[in-house]
């Protein structure tokens, strides 16, 4: 067993999420009293910066795609909680709009980043809702996985 090494300022680590390939670990750390997501390289322990998520703490419920390109989590915007997905490749931040005043509680991103599951509160009850992200995010697939290119037709 290994222990995820804490940063110098981290006093606690919660809500762990591994990337599909097992190379990245996201945790929520208490940094100067603010619940902040940290992304660690599991192999060498280095911490990756997530500039697009610097504001809007507290963070909770991180979830990573296969190669850790995308990180989904719950943030705070003013008085409202909001689910967002950060793209580490191009720095974009995708907010997930929830109609009807429902609050997001927990999030899970499929490894290929094409589907999102959200736990929300709806009239005092917990629900899980599924969203299709195929119009929003590129696929984050395992390295070396074959693309769905049509097979070459043999020459006559």
């Amino acid at each position, binding site marked *: 067993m290994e222990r*995820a090494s804490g940063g110098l300022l981290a006093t606690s*680590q919660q809500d*762990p999420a*591994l990337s599909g390939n*097992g190379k990245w670990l996201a945790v929520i750390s208490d940094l100067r009293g603010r619940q902040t997501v940290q992304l660690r390289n599991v192999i060498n322990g280095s911490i990756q910066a997530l500039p697009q998520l610097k504001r809007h703490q507290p963070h909770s419920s991180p979830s990573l795609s296969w190669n850790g390109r995308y990180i989904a989590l719950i943030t705070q915007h003013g008085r409202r909680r909001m689910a967002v997905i950060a793209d580490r490749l191009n720095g974009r931040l995708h907010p997930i709009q929830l109609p009807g005043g429902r609050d997001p509680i927990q999030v899970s991103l499929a490894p290929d980043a094409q589907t999102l*599951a959200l736990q929300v509160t709806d009239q005092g*009850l917990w*629900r899980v809702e599924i969203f299709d992200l195929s119009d929003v995010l590129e696929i984050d697939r395992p390295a070396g996985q074959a693309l769905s290119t049509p097979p070459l037709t043999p020459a006559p």
Partner: protein
Amino acid sequence: MKMVSLSLGLLILIAGCSGERPRPRPELNGLLRQSVSSRRDPSLAQVWLASLGKRGGRERIELIDLRNRRPVPLPGLNRADAQPISLSVSGDGARIAVVQQRDDRTELFLYRRNAAALQRIPLDPPGVPRSVSLDGSGRLLAVEVSRNGRWDVDLIRLP
């Protein structure tokens, strides 16, 4: 100024109409509401959704095959005397890591579907587990553990 606000309005309109937004899956979401009074703790794999569904006041771990939108049997996983707290499913849906409470003890388990076997994963040093995450292969596990009033994250490699 008028030009700027007009351009901004146009931009918002274009963004709103571009269709590049998450689309709810009504057929799946309807199914997820059926027959449970509440549902929480979703864990998505490629074609699998694991979650905790509450029926008759009791929470059970459910695994749904998203291809045919049907729950799959999980023999030996949901014990009548155990309360599930957190779960995570591997990429191929073959393994489910579960934190559950039974007889005032909160413990970490790994469920293997092909063997229908629930195996306790010991924590060293001992602690109280809470939130859990499996990687895609189901062979690396991260778990939040309370020890002496502090939350740590342990990484555990599984055979």
